[in-house]
């Protein structure tokens, strides 16, 4: 039983982290692996740097 609780707690933590936006790099990696691109994927650091810089060029709105 405690294992089940720990499991669902882990699931919740992961869910919360994803809602905060941490799923971005995982999604990118999955995409990179699946798309069969020849080059190496961006490292985590490069990915986040690029993601932020992309937001500079394409701002998203926030609501009132």
């Amino acid at each position: 039983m405690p294992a089940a609780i720990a499991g669902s707690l882990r699931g919740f933590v992961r869910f919360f982290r994803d809602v905060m936006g941490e799923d971005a790099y995982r999604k990118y990696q999955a995409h990179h692996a699946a798309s069969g691109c020849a080059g190496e994927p961006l490292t985590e650091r490069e990915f986040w740097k690029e993601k932020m810089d992309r937001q500079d060029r394409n701002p998203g709105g926030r609501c009132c």
Partner: protein
Amino acid sequence: MSENRRHRKGPAGHDPVDTGPGVLIQDPDLPPVALDDADAEAEDRRWTPAKIVLWVGIALLGGISWTMLAIVRGETVNAIWFVFAAVCTYFIGYRFYSKFIERHLLKPNDRRATPAEYKADGKDYAATDRRVLYGHHFAAIAGAGPLVGPVLAAQMGYLPGTVWIIVGVILAGAVQDYLVMFFSMRRGGRSLGQMAREELGLIGGTAALIATLTIMIIIVAILALVVVNALGESPWGVFSVAMTIPIALFMGVYLRFLRPGKVTEVSIIGFVLLMLAIVGGGWIADTEWGVALFSLDRVTIAWGIIIYGFIAAVLPVWLLLAPRDYLSTFMKVGTIVMLAVAIIIVRPEISVPAFSEFASRSDGPVVAGPLFPFLFVTIACGALSGFHALISSGTTPKMIEKERQTRFIGYGGMLMESFVAIMALVAALSIDRGIYFAMNSSAAATGGTVEGAVAFVNSLGLAGVSLTPDMLTSLAAGVGEESVVSRTGGAPTLAVGLAMIMQSFIGGPAMMAFWYHFAIMFEALFILTAVDAGTRVARFMLQDSIGNFVPKFRDTSWRTGAWICTAVMVAGWGSILIMGVTDPLGGINTLFPLFGIANQLLAAIALAICLAILAKKNLFKYIWVVVLPLGFASVVTITASMYKIFSPVPGVGYWAQHNAFRNALEAGETSFGTAKTVEAMEAVVRNTFVQGILSILFVTLAIIVIITAVIASVRSYRSGGAPSAEDPAVPSRIFAPSGFFGTPLEKEIEAQWKALPQDKKPAAKTAGAGH
């Protein structure tokens, strides 16, 4: 916003089969990518005894709650009935009405790939687990709006606001979000502006663009005004909100250089620092130097926000905006859950009448004007918010995994925002009515003093209200503020309500001041993030528009152009902000209707675009689903605008006020009404002129958009529909359930996909799935 590059056409090694919408052929080597239509229909229509009991239970509880609110009405009513009435109605609306819209109007097809699949780039276009995306979407649409409007509308009693928030979201707000999201998804994630241009032609599209731009300016200005009013003469608030800037900068550096991608970790660190800033603010507000340093008058704070807005909008995103955004999401999700738990546990008794004296009058001190239409513009966010159409188009649709998930994310996401509005209303209603009016009447009415406020509120002749000076001073001491008189704008009232509820949940009276400033802080945090992001988006829109004439402006990396356009946008909202802060008539009380009108005009524009799209599809039989909210929003906003433009009552009509003060000036008077000097009178003349012009501009643009949409729809009606602007259908190669929980049939298909050998699995299966 304008990015629409096509990176790749489909999953690896498989060129999408180009088929019409009807003949999407599925890869025979894969498990089903969609539920069989007949199976799905049967699953929906099969009423097992357990299901019947559940829905009868929900309906009964909802019915009892509404009866308690609307009919029984004892001396007091318990807040829990608001929660039950709202939640049960949402469930019923979601299960039956949104399903009706899905079945008859939108007809999503899970055999079709979504943009996240056929345009997948792993970044903007990336299929995201539906529950995670629900969180992303909710965090993007919910802000300070649903927290402020219901507070101001509480002046009319609890019932009008409650009915509008709950019924409005079911029939209008959630419908708009759902439709816009679906149509944008079918168009590769196009933005609202692009869809307007496509569906309404040059005139309608241009009017929609100008309307969006001006509406953004006014919304940013009024949100900023809410913050200024909350922080004015409050050293504690000024210190703790100012500290969010270094905290965000630290988080930005941490994420960029120390631990990239550790968003939750840095948000927790930021949150702890934020709590320290609130506690520290309390200490500083107790010291003499702290009071001297951080007691700023409203004009100074307004200038501070203007300068901040400019700098924040030209700094790189990673340094300030992104970390602020993470912090704001963290606070948003956390606080809302906490507030819901607190309301359910504390269950405050509410003694506000169902309909107050001001429900049938038009001289309410908080927001002037009769219930119709002003209730419906005062509460915009939470019931119907046009701003959501900007988020529901563009950002979220690029991440949707399967078409049928739009109902859960679009319609369901808005229901959650409506629930936030209900909780804000409950918090505002739980305050003593005398205190409520003392806090929300403008300084022009109360004189800004305790004695003045007591005299004014008691002179209103409200049933059951007898305000004493002691009530106001002890509340001010309790929340750690100099004074609570005329703290207009909604945020301080909500903070008091929230502090009262939270202190009886955690901490007791000693924690009251902490909770008050906690609430002020998170509202300020949402708003400053919205100010920053809004300025950026508006700047890009302006650059794009100017780019039509001076092509160099299109280049968004051109520093000079970016700075010029940012300055123009900041000057736009900044001047309205200063105008509101210095307004002798009370600022927010006169400006807030303009905020609601602007937001709902945007909703009318979004719904008009949906109307034109549905007409093209020749779906006239069920088009009332969009005609109903469109008609209502149009009537409300146009009527409200007409009141603001033509009403002869100076308290309601901008031009009536304008002329009254101008005539007084011409007659050589040196004081008139609440304006005690000639300069103040001139300020009123100037302010009402600007407000009057804005009212005229908004209503004219909205009418143009609505007329062009109606013309386009009539044309479609005559020709029996027209080719749609949807992207061509591409067969999907992934599967995911549509709602929060998968149905038994969906789980069966999921199991088949899981059993698929790794090498046979197709491309873009989400990384986020499978919790």
